[in-house]
C-alpha cells in the first residue's frame, strides 16, 4: 500500500523537484504530469502505470496556461502522488479514475499553496526603499525563497502520499472489476481533451484533421 522507504525518499525528492520546476527553477518539464507521474511510477517500480496516469493528467493540463500573474492549479506534486499511488494500487484499473480525480482536487490545494508562497516571497524580498543591497543578502533572500518552494513541494507530496494510497486500496479493492469501462472512459477523456486542443493552437482545424488522418493511417497499418 505504501512505498518502500527508499522509494518514498525518491518520491519526496521528485515532489520537491516538480514543485520548483513549475516556476522557480529551470522549467524543464519535470513539473508536467506526463513526467511527474511517470517518474513517480518508476520510483515505485511501475513506470508504465505512472505513464497511464501521466497521459490522462497531461491531456487535462494541455490547455492550462501560466500566463501573467494568473492563478492556476499546480500539477507537479499532485501528479507525483497520483502516479505513485496508482502504480501501487494497480492492477485495479478503476483506481486510475480515483487517482486522476484526487489529483484534480489536490491541484487546487497545491495552487493555493503557490499563491501563499508568492505572498511570503513578497515579504522576503521587500527592500522598503533601500538603495543598496549586498550580493550576499540578495542571494540569501532569493535562494531562501527557492528553498521554501522546494519544501512546499516535499510537504505536499508527503501529505498526498499519506492519503491517496490507502484511499485507493479501500475504494478499489477488486483487481479486475470495472477495469474495461474505467480504461475506456479514461481514453475517451484523453480523446476529448485532445480534440479541445485545436482551440489551443488557434483553431487550426484543417491541420488538426490532417494530423488525425495521418494518425488513423498509422492505426490502420499497425
Amino acid at each position, binding site marked *: 500500500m505504501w512505498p518502500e522507504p527508499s522509494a518514498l525518499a525518491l518520491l519526496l525528492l521528485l515532489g520537491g523537484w516538480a514543485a520548483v520546476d513549475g516556476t522557480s527553477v529551470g522549467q524543464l*518539464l519535470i513539473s508536467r504530469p506526463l513526467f511527474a507521474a*511517470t517518474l513517480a511510477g518508476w520510483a515505485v517500480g511501475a513506470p508504465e502505470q505512472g505513464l497511464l496516469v501521466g497521459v490522462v493528467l497531461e491531456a487535462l493540463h494541455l*490547455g492550462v496556461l501560466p500566463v501573467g500573474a494568473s492563478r492556476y492549479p499546480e500539477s507537479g506534486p499532485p501528479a507525483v502522488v497520483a502516479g505513485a499511488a496508482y502504480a501501487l494500487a494497480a492492477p485495479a484499473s478503476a483506481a486510475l479514475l480515483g487517482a486522476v480525480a484526487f489529483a484534480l482536487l489536490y491541484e487546487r490545494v497545491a495552487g493555493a499553496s503557490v499563491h501563499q508562497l508568492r505572498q511570503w516571497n513578497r515579504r522576503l524580498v521587500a527592500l522598503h526603499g533601500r538603495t543598496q543591497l549586498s550580493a550576499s543578502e540578495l542571494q540569501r533572500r532569493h535562494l531562501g525563497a527557492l528553498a521554501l518552494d522546494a519544501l512546499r513541494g516535499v510537504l505536499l507530496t508527503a501529505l498526498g502520499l499519506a492519503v491517496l494510497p490507502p484511499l485507493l486500496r479501500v475504494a478499489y479493492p477488486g483487481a479486475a472489476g470495472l477495469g474495461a469501462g474505467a480504461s475506456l472512459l479514461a481514453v475517451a477523456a484523453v480523446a476529448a481533451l485532445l480534440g479541445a486542443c485545436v482551440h489551443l493552437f488557434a483553431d487550426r482545424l484543417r491541420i488538426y484533421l490532417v494530423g*488525425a488522418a495521418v*494518425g488513423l493511417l498509422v492505426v490502420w497499418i499497425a
Partner: protein
Amino acid sequence: MSESLPRALRVRVLMRSMLVQGSWNYETLLGTGFAFALLPMLRRSLDDEEEVSRALARHAELFNSHPYLATLALGAVARLEAERTPEQVTTRFKNALRGSLGALGDQLFWRSWRPFCLAFGLALALAAAPWWLVLGTVFVVYNAGHLWARVWGLRTGYGAGLEVGRVIREAPLPRLGQRIGDLGALAAGIATALAVGLGEAPAEMALLAAAAAAGIVLGGRTRPAAGIVIGAAALLAALLERT
C-alpha cells in the same frame, strides 16, 4: 567594447538565469531573480562592491519577462551597465522591454512550443512507445528549443544593448510561432486518432471519435466537463465495488 561576453561568464549567467523566477512574487515579479542573474556581469563591469550593491537594489525592483527570454534583458542591461549608461535610461529601457518579453515568450513557448512537444509526447505514449522513449524524446526536443532561446537571448541582448527592441521586432519570431502552432495542431490530431485507435471494437472507436468531436465543440469547457465525469465515474466505481 567587446561584442561578446567571456564564455565562463556566459555559462554562469545562463545557469543563474535558470533560477530567475526563484523568488517570484506579486509585487516585484521576477525583479529579485533578475538582479541575482545579473550579479556576475555587474561585478565584471562595476568598480567596487558598493557600486554593485547600489546596482543590485535598482535591478531588484519590479521587472517581468518570460523566463526563457529573460536573458535578452539580462544581456542588454549588462551591456548598458558596462557602458555606464545613466540609471534613468536603463530603468526606462527595462520598463519598455517588460511587456514585450512577457507576451512574446507566452506566445512562443506556453502557447506553442510546450503544447506541441507535449502533444507529440502524448502521441508517442498512445502509440505504445516505451515510457523512457516518450520522456526522453520530449525532454530532449523541448529543452533543445528552450536552451537555444536562453543562449540566443543572452548573446543577442548583449550584442544589441539599447537596440534589442529593434532586433526582437526584426527577428522572425512571430513566423516561428506560427510554424510551431501548425506542428502542434498536427501532433494533437495524430494523438487524437491514436487515442481513437485504442478502441477494441468499432463501437468503442466510434465512441472515442464522438468524444474527440465533443472536445472540438466544447473547447475550453472540455476540461471541467472531463473532470466532473472522471470524478463521478471514480465515485460510482468505488460504490459498485461494494455491491
